[in-house]
């Protein structure tokens, strides 16, 4: 009998450390599915960030490397220079990639590093109890914006894909979300495109994934998914932001 649905071999069977309703597990699973389907476990090296996904290596049965907060683009660059034919990806959250690691991601993109970046944007610092992220929406309440983010004092949410799109070195930038089964399927397609861009040596790719954090959004799981569709997607429109792979 043919199984219609199985745990990917690369996805390690272990209790999750993520909170209920979190999107990280979905993204990590999609990565594992692609690694299995393409048979690239033996030549894939992943980078874990600092933040909620610091333990990403607990779930993926591949060679993985930790990096200091915000530094995965630099560490990934160092790895990729040694193994130019391997598939190297960095998995980063919004604080890691768009606050403390802004310089590293901009320059990795600008150099056109042939690496795939998976940017999980949940608009909040989950690991440290829900403080403002660089992508926190205007008006969003967090531990450090108790009356809501006001743009006069706290600035504006950073649109990473748009920011990187003006750089000559970025090749493929797409924003997707996890808000529905259909969007999860689109996310998988986008991740495949990101990895394909790298395997075909077409340069820097980044897939931004809008992901729910029900705990620090103070919502239940359903509300969080609706929030992505109705609020987050207004500030962060879904779609391909740049495609220079053709």
């Amino acid at each position: 009998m043919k199984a219609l649905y199985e745990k990917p071999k690369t996805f390690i069977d272990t209790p999750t450390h993520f909170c209920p309703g979190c999107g990280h597990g979905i993204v990590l699973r999609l990565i594992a599915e692609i690694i299995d389907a393409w048979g690239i476990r033996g030549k894939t090296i992943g980078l874990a960030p600092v933040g909620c996904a610091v333990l990403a290596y607990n779930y993926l049965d591949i060679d993985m490397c930790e990096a200091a907060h915000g530094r995965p683009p630099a560490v990934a660059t160092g790895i990729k220079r040694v193994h130019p034919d391997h598939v190297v990806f960095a998995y980063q959250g919004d604080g890691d990639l768009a606050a403390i690691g802004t310089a590293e991601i901009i320059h990795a993109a600008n150099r056109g590093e042939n690496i795939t970046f998976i940017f999980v944007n949940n608009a909040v610092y989950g690991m440290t109890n829900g403080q403002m992220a660089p992508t926190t929406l205007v008006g969003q309440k967090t531990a450090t914006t108790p009356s809501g983010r006001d743009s006069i004092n706290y600035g504006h949410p950073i649109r990473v894909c748009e920011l990187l799109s003006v750089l000559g070195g970025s090749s493929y930038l797409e924003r997707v979300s996890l808000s529905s089964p259909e969007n999860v399927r689109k996310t998988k397609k986008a991740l495949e495109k990101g990895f394909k861009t790298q395997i075909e040596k077409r340069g820097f790719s980044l897939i931004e994934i809008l992901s729910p954090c029900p705990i620090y959004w103070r919502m239940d799981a359903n509300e969080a998914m609706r929030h992505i569709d109705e609020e987050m997607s207004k500030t962060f429109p879904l779609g391909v932001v740049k495609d220079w792979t053709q």
Partner: protein
Amino acid sequence: MKQLMTGNEAAAEAAIVAGCRYYYGYPITPQNELINYMSMRMPQIGGSFIQAESEIAAINMVYGSAAAGARAMTSSSSPGISLKQEGISYLAGSELPCVIVNIQRGGPGLGDISASQADYFQAVKGGGHGDYHTIVLAPSSVQEMADLVYDAFDLADKYRNPVMILGDAQIGQLMEPMEFHKRPKKNLPQKTWSLTGAEGRKRNIVKSFYPVKGQLEEFNAHLQRKYKAIEEHEVRYETVNTHKADIVLVAYGTSARVCADVVRKSRQLEFKVGLIRPITLWPFPKEIIRKISEKVQCILTVEMSAGQMVEDVRLAVEGKCPVHFYGRTGGGVPTSTQVIKKIVEVVPDNLANTLLQLAEVR
């Protein structure tokens, strides 16, 4: 064949001779000859050179290439080395071998671009957060710069530990005749821990995060055992005229060159001046300093700092003889006359006259 090279260029070429093919750096004076040289040489030999967006990025690129199993190097000068401290702590915590060259300049802050030894504390006491050590090697000539950079890669691989070359603006920019000695290949451990893709084996993880209670303490105990082994086996120093010396100078790098001159000038006197020149600043040559301190009237530590290494000298001496200090700061380099004056000041009165002759000798 001997050639004329700056210390900075010698460090770069020695790294290449040692098999380093990955160099990442950010411009800063007085180490620019090194990054410039690497940008020219790395493409010629199929290596990788990146002028990084910051010193932070450069040290993290080193982290990546080291994790991937390659010999990697970065270089900078004092303010840039401060920026690298985060990365150095992570390298130590992940037990990654690499070489970091610090061509010290005056500080604190932006300071100046003259020679200085004011980063001694930062280099040997950790610099970044956590209980860790980098192996610190201090060359005092261009030849020694080349020799130590070569050895630094072997030491890094042997112990899976970052190694720092602690030079200064004079050692970096000075031109001297030198040659590259290719050493016999050492029997170093295979890098079975490195990230090469998990084809046909269990996966490897390079990390310094130990969230489960007790694991981090266990890991730190392992690090401390490693540091103890390094202290037992890797101490290096040079002694000059310490046998029957009345006073012994302790100095490294450029200061040691000045002190060597003082020792030379004092040879004709009855009063004997010796020199201990630490080559490894960590591990520190405390045994030899302690031994010699039992036989001399006093010790004088000479540094281009307000007094940093002198603390380690005092710890080594444990009060067995007086330990004096002479230092210049902010880019000042001691002259032999100044060191001699200081000797006259600190030696017992009955010997001061002999020393005044010495002051006249020059």
